[in-house]
């Protein structure tokens, strides 16, 4: 679709972002701008740096990061801890949600929501109101309430883990939700739930960075921009049609391009 929708304020601004870990450079100069209310999709082959980008955005400290600019809602992300980023409104739906035995999902949600509220100068939510709200939201992801009292992700199936991530997103209502291959491994019903969750939250104040391997999610979520990430760089940006092109032709052109370290613009198009 058109990428000329009414755009809000600049939310995420990335210029020349590089990241390395263990001496290996994974991101090699990313440029990305995302405005409030926009949905951006990042597609790319395996090993292109998609998950690294999401981890770096959430503040994982196992990467050495350098950039000319790396800001979120006017804050320089460099020097901000993961919790500070989360409180400012960044949410990462993990590709591989971590099992945390002994910490219940409801407890995590309560700690998390109250930390964010405190940061905004708000009182902790009343326990009854909180539970009512969470129980309403868990219906949206079609999970039983019993999950709330189980340990976070422990012994959850792949689909349940993803639903739990969507539930957390729905409860925390972030400004920027990064969905790191949240659609992978989901059946059609779960995919619809995910899309519903995103579309329901979508609005002028909220943006999404959807990292995906497949374009099928885009049948349910209308993106404003689509980017191809290959070899640690944004190889190409465009609209919905770019996703359809990948669906038809695959990433081969970009992978070869990246492997050969070809200068100049990508030859796909």
């Amino acid at each position, binding site marked *: 679709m058109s990428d000329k929708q009414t755009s809000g304020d600049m939310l995420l601004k990335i210029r020349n972002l590089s990241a390395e870990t263990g001496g290996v450079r994974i991101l090699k100069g990313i440029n990305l701008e995302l405005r409030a209310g926009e949905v951006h999709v990042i597609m790319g082959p395996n090993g292109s740096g998609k998950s690294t980008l999401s981890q770096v955005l*959430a503040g994982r400290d196992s990467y050495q990061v350098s950039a000319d600019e790396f800001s979120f809602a006017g804050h320089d992300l460099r020097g901000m*801890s993961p*919790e500070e980023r*989360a409180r400012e409104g960044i949410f990462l739906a993990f590709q591989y949600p971590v099992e945390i035995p002994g*910490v219940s999902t409801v*407890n*995590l949600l309560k700690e998390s929501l109250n930390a964010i509220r405190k*940061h905004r100068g708000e009182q902790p939510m009343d326990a009854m109101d909180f539970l009512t709200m969470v129980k309403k939201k868990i219906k949206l992801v079609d999970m039983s309430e019993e999950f709330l009292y189980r340990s976070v992700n422990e012994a959850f199936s792949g689909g349940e883990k993803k639903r739990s991530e969507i539930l957390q997103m729905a409860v925390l209502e972030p400004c920027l939700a990064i969905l790191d291959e949240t659609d992978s491994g989901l059946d059609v019903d779960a995919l619809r739930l995910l899309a519903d969750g995103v579309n329901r939250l979508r609005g002028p104040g909220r943006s999404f960075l959807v990292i995906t391997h497949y374009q099928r999610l885009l049948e349910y979520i209308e993106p404003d921009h689509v980017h191809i990430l290959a070899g640690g760089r944004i190889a190409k940006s465009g609209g919905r049609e770019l996703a359809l092109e990948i669906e038809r032709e695959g990433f081969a052109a970009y992978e070869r391009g990246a492997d050969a370290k070809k200068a100049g613009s990508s030859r796909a198009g």
Partner: protein
Amino acid sequence: MSTVIDRSQADFHRLAGFLPGHQTPWIADLRARALARFAEQGYPTPREEAWKYTDLAPLAGKHFQPLATRDEVVARVAIDDYVLDPQWPRLVFIDGYHVPALSMLPAGVSLAPLAEVLAQSPDTIKPLFTASDEARGFAALNTAFMSDGLCLRLTPNVVLEQPIHFIHIAHGGARPAASYLRHLVLAGRGSRATLIEHYVGEGADAKAGALTSTMTQCVLEEGAALEHYQLNEQGLSVYHFSSVHVHQSRGSRYVSHNVQAGARIARSDLHAVLAEPGAQCVMNGLYFGRGRQIVDNCTFIDHQAPHCSSRQIYRGVLDGESRGVFNGHVMVRQDAQHTDAQQMNSNLLLSDDAEADARPQLTINADDVKCSHGATVGQLNEDALFYLRARGVAAERARAMLVQAFAADIVSHMSAERVRMHLDALIAARLGR
């Protein structure tokens, strides 16, 4: 410089005429014999197998003096911080002596300070001291100097609805004080009770410290059930030595929740004898180390009869340069067929300089048994930590949550909710910096 043996003998000479039961010849003899056995060796050394992980050398130069009488006890101490539930009957002791003004004894239960029993009706408890006639080291010192403690006698089938909360405060007043406490629990046939031993206080001051020695003897008659908490939250200059002996008859159930969260050196001995068929023994242990603390757990579960079971889970959380020891031995004797014994020790190291010594031991002399044991040492899961932080939870709070989760395997088995809440708060406060 005088040795600990010289000093103990001098203290004994000074105090013998004041200690409870001194008019009763068998008690006076018992104490004198115990002191003589202590004088043969003094404090245990790492050369002894059971003490190989803990060197008591730092204690050698210190003189902790027992108070001669309860009149020396400073009775004005605020106890609000230590009372877990104002409704629970409680006995409050300071520096080895009972302080009636701070206590709240339950009606209709035979519960008395041991000093009172030793002075007034010593012969009723005489048989319980036969084992004390062999003890060495701290047990001998404790027998020589025991000043007070609690004596709980449950008549058959009596059920105590509320826990009995014993609080001991190492206060010390003007000088480094030693406290020698002795507790007796006689659980009659079919009786049920919960006892919470709670050790707190910083001693006279951070430099002087204090010594707390405590021994508990539990006898469970047929079908009796005892839930026994030991919570050590003493200050970092206190030396804490505790030992528990349990004797279990047919079908009895003993549950220990042993929490070591305080003292410069905390040593906890737990010895249970499953003497008759159908006895069940549960030992839950949770220990925390920080700074240069040493926490040494030494347990012995003696399966003497068939069809008994024991479950032991000990978990340690070690920070700073602290050291945690789990030295646990399960013995299955020849007659103890169909024993079901499980033992597990897990440790969480929060710093590079912390150390865990795990020594789970199993000796099996019967051929038809089900036994397992093991030990692990690990660190906080970095991925879990990042996950929680990425949800807005502060790093220190995230660490506390993960430690609480690790401890939950022990804490969740405690039936006293107030204790569970207390421990969650303790962990949050410890890791909240």
